[in-house]
């Protein structure tokens, strides 16, 4: 049913992505591709992978932006994936019932057996979260690693999306954004997490943490501002003799 759940539960699983920390290494995108090439949405088809013009399905893309001008300018790495919105138009436009939003945790999924490949859901998503698989003829998207986060054969620490477990800088956090007491909700409050394109009204679950203000002065780590002279004035001995000799 592509109508949104009539009675969604409070639980809203999603990601909090820290743009201050992300170093733009693309490890999240690569591990996402790796995990999902064997997961529920597999295969993530690559056409001409070794050709001149490769074309493939990825659920996670890392863009790099320049923001601001001159000295105030900065480089921001920006990972982009499905935001598992509370008002996902990609779901409601689906004519077949292939797209759906889970009532129990808010994850937006595609049932590939029902998808007719009309691509309308990808038009309805402002964020470009859905990528069409030309080979399979169906639409594919981030599953929030549903086959990993609920997988009880994995140790508990591994039950997070592949992009989160692989991030070497810990720029990605996974949790329940519907629970105000969860670690991700607290992090979001502390750091001023925000929605992408709030003006469109999709109410994304995933939040982004802004880059921290740029430091304009060196941090005081206890060293004095001026270097102490190598040879204290008025001292004698061999070093003082060399100093006098060289200064002359």
């Amino acid at each position, binding site marked *: *049913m*592509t*109508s949104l759940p009539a009675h969604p539960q409070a639980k809203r699983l999603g990601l909090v992505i820290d743009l201050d920390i992300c170093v*733009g290494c693309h490890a999240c995108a690569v591990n996402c591709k790796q995990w999902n090439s064997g997961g529920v949405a597999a295969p993530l088809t690559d056409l001409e992978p070794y050709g001149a*013009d*490769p*074309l493939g*399905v*990825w659920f996670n*893309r*890392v*863009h*790099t*932006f*320049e*923001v*601001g*001008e001159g000295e*105030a300018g*900065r*480089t*921001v790495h*920006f990972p*982009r994936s499905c935001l598992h919105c509370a008002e996902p*138009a990609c*779901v*409601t*436009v*689906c*004519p*077949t*019932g292939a797209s759906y939003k889970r009532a129990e945790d808010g994850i937006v999924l595609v049932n590939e057996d029902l*998808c*007719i*490949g*009309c*691509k*309308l859901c*990808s*038009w*309805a*998503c*402002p*964020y*470009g979260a859905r*990528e*069409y698989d030309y080979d399979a*003829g*169906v639409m594919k998207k981030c599953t929030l690693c549903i086959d990993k986060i609920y997988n009880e054969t994995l140790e508990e620490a591994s039950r997070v999306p592949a992009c989160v477990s692989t991030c070497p800088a810990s720029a990605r956090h996974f949790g329940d954004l519907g629970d105000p007491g969860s670690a991700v909700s607290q992090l979001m409050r502390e750091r001023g997490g925000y*929605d*992408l*394109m*709030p*003006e*469109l*009204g*999709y109410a994304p679950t995933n939040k*982004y943490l*802004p*880059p921290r203000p740029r430091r304009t002065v060196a941090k005081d780590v206890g060293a004095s501002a001026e270097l102490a002279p190598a040879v204290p004035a008025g001292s004698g001995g061999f070093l003082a003799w060399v100093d006098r000799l060289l200064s002359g």
Partner: protein
Amino acid sequence: MHPALSVIVFTTSSGAGYGLLAWLGVWAVAGWLPANRGLAAASLGLSLGAITVGLLSSTLHLGHPERAWRAFSQWRSSWLSREGVSSAATYVPALLFALGWLVIGSTSGIWALFGALSAVGAVATVVCTAFIYQSLKPIQRWSNGWVLPNYLALSAMTGVLWLIAVLSLFGMMDDYLILAAFLCIPLAGFLKVRYWRFIDRTASLSDAGTATGLGALGRVRLFEAPHTSENYLMKEMGFRIARKHAAKLRIIALVAAFFLPQLLTLTGLLIPEALLPLCAIAAAVIATIGVLIERWLFFAEAKHTVTLYYGAERA
């Protein structure tokens, strides 16, 4: 947006077919439809033929056309599904209308009622088509109030021009239909020009700043794309048309869709009756070509917010 030929043909062809069907239904209710079987075969054949060809064309861009029947299921939420249901449902009164007119030879009484129901179904289907586009918020050039009146007016215009063309072949002409054409053509032209004015003058709600949330830190521009070759998003939603081409194509569309059909319809009134079919058919054909160009532009000029992540500063 990528202008997919199958969707352009679908919206133009079925738009004209539904327009024609609606005029036939209204004319049956008014009691002005001659009980002529040849005319019935030609006009309903053309209308249902154009609708069917359009609908079949629309399935060509599907990844799984064999599952197309599933699209009838989600009419509660999806305009695409509603369009499917409405288009299929319209065949029922349309075929009964055809039964009355073509087989029984009557366009009055209950058969006129089926004509009326066909007209309602035709208008409802065009409304659904327009809302598929108008409801997409990431594409501001579609998500505005000019889209629905444009689709309705263009459907009515091509429909009445094709009806006049068919009637002229049977040596029949209807002054009210000529009047309808004289009203529909300038109205559709006016609405199209207003639509273009709107998309040219209205800044999009979203920009690279809101798409990344970094706008408060300064101007946001793409430094490095995530991948070196194009992906699905760029192929499907990153279509760009050169401004100078768009301007020329708009003029060609205006001339073909509105100016020439109006001129040809007017000429048809002044020349000997034997030459009338020539003018009427030319008007319908040229108008349809004009609408095809207009529909191509409707897609090609539409910008999607996903382009904000790929270097566009506004969508």
